[in-house]
């Protein structure tokens, strides 16, 4: 980046899908928005290198200060993006494949409704990480979303599939209304884990300050979580919700607390 916006930039067209097969000039002409005004990418960024013929063969490296750039990698299907900076909201939103690495912090709505691919934040995130779009009951369905640091609230809301791994702590509302998928939090969570969740697996290596009342202890089990074996107390819930049966067995969300 060579110029900062006065407001924020909506960079949803900065994706391997958009860059693939284009010349530097054509890439420079791709529109990004600042508020309601559209600008060519070249007015904010110096562009070097060459795109691949397809999205899968295209790697984009973003340098400079992208703290106020939103939606990088939105809806991408293949290829790679590396962001060497903090980045703003909606990074990797609705992504369907490919790989994004942020060497810095990301803001809220990171990996919103992610369908597949790898999204790695080597820093902290804010809220609504790997969550569903506001009002929608269909959240993350696939892929791996890894946050090295801490996250805020509303992680994996309405999750259906995929994996979220948080290296640090989370605040509240993890796997709310979850219907599948796996969330691993290696640090602590303050409260409201698995609220109204009906299916999926949540692993917490640290402490939960306030457990949801709808979770019931079953037994201790040994589990391999992100490559590390340990003993976990296995809880099932949310008992306040309907629980369908599969093959004669009632399905619950599994909450594993490391002992």
């Amino acid at each position, binding site marked *: 980046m060579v110029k900062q916006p006065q407001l924020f930039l909506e960079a949803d067209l900065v994706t391997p899908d958009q860059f693939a097969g284009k010349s530097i000039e054509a890439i420079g002409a791709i529109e990004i928005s600042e508020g309601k005004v559209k600008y060519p990418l070249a007015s904010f960024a110096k562009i070097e290198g060459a795109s691949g013929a397809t999205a899968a063969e295209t790697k984009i490296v973003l340098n400079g200060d992208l703290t106020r750039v939103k939606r990088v990698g939105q809806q991408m299907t293949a290829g790679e993006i590396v962001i060497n900076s903090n980045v703003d909201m909606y990074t990797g939103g609705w992504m369907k494949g490919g790989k994004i690495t942020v060497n810095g912090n990301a803001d809220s709505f990171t990996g919103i409704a992610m369908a597949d691919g790898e999204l790695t934040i080597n820093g902290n995130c804010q809220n609504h990480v790997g969550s569903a*779009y*506001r*009002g*929608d*009951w269909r959240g993350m369905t696939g892929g791996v979303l890894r946050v090295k640091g801490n996250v805020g609230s509303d992680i994996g809301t309405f999750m259906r599939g995929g994996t979220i791994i948080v290296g640090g702590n989370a605040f509240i509302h993890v796997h709310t209304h979850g219907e599948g998928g796996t969330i691993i939090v290696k640090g602590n969570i303050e409260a409201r884990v698995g609220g109204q969740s009906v299916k999926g697996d949540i692993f917490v290596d640290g402490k939960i300050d306030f457990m949801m009342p709808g979770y019931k202890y079953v037994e201790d089990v040994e589990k391999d979580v992100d490559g590390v074996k340990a003993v976990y107390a296995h809880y099932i819930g949310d008992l306040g919700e*309907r629980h369908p049966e599969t093959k004669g067995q009632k399905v619950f969300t599994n909450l594993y607390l490391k002992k």
Partner: protein
Amino acid sequence: MTEYIIKNGCVIDPTQSINGQKMDICIKDGKIVDKVSKAAKVIDATGKTVMAGGVDIHSHVAGPKVDAGRLFRPEDKLFKSPNRKSNLRMEMGFSVPSVVKTGYDYARMGYGFVMEAAMPPLEAAHVHEEIRDTPIIDQAAMPVVGNNWFLLEYFKNHEIENAGAYTSWMLNATRGYALKCVNPGGTEAWGWGLNCITIHDKVPYFDITPAEIMKGLIETNEYLRLPHSIHVHTNNLGNPGNYTTTLDTLKLVEGYKPNNDFGREQVMHHTHLQFHCYGGDSFKSSSFESKSKEVMDYVNKQKLLTIDTGNVTLDETTTMTADGPFEYHLSHLNHLKWTNVDIELETAAGVVPFIYDPKTYIAGAQWAIGLELSLFAKDKDRCFITTDHPNAGPFWRYPRIYKWLLSAKARNDLIANELKYGDKVIDTTYIGELSDKEISLYELAQMTRSGPAKALGFSNLYGSLKTGMNANVAVFDIDPENLPSDPEQYETAFGNVFAFFKDGVLCVENHDIVNYSMPKKTIWVNSIVPENKQVDRDIRDKFLHSYTVDLENYAVQEEHVHNPYAIKVDITE
């Protein structure tokens, strides 16, 4: 004012028995005229179909529950809203479009009039505000009365003149057009968490049955000599086996006569009939079945009835209805979010998203039933095409429904290629035995123009290309002398009108909206009845004791109603 001549089109106008005749349609000063001067602008309609502007008899497009649907479904807009066209306003929403998109999309299909299907009387102002903000199309709204405390009490004692006086007052206070009856008695029972699923179930406290309510409403409607008949969504909607309730309801018309000076011949219009033609006792293919034939056998021989279809379009959509208990049950069936509201003394409403997934058996069966109604209908001018928008699908899918009715191939291809349980659908519905039936363009015009206009009692305003009519004229890229072999062209042509005139103003030219600022009207019925001191007192009494608003604040104010066009019906004369 500008003169136009739509030259050489194939005109289809059932009100004049014109079926594809090549003729010119002349427009001057907003009306259809016999001839125009040489200065008239020419719209070349050679090889195209010319029809009157469409009339939608039932669509939820303006009002508080529509707005609730918009508010609680942000995802209905995400990635589903088109980019703004340069000369138009922003358009948002898929199944519950914004009012701007609503007006534009109806114009793109060549529709000139849309009836808002349900207006909660207490919130009439909200309905009128949205009507004001909907561009292009003329609209009217039907106040819901089937669960109204005043009427439940008057009907209990069979006080028809009192019911008439109250209803007349209410039509005027809300600037309403007709009497809408939704789940009669059942929506009031919902206040106790109960329902009425046959027409003989008693309503708690009021101790009256849906049959008594509907008969009372028929008598009231005919006493008031209204342009439209009562407009009914009967009990037990959506439940397997409900066709018996439907037949019981339809038979209530027997013995009545339509009293009016508007050419209306029915005493009951039943809406979205598709939802009411279910047999069996569950939604499983081992039990569920279509009863459209049984129901249409009765509709075909009963001239006192008109119906609209409520076709399922196989989309992700939003259900919204004054049938409060139904929405509660639906949300427990699909486990999706639900909003529910009670309107004091009057009605209720619920909104729940719904996906009619062609990979499920039941959506395929519902889709089939909706189409069977039109294909079984013998009088196409008593059977109208709707989707109960947005309940069974978005209104802008009408051209897709036309395609399925005009082309057996399109229907059969869908069954073979898109329905996962097509075989089971064929086994349990009548769609297989109708596999070579098609409607004609003339019948399409009856079902979307002349028929609904007649049922609504305003054939002098809409649905016709007679000289003197307001010039609502649609030109479509379909050549009746050379019908397309690819049925997709029906959907494309009817969904992208070539040219559309609204009140003689060119709204769509060459498939693009070029003008959306022409005046649009709110049609309402100004009902005049003899003075009734009893009812006046009852109204003051109920407002004092039961309503939370004052009588002085209840009626819609003049400035709320956009460009009103009143149809006066004075029974004292």
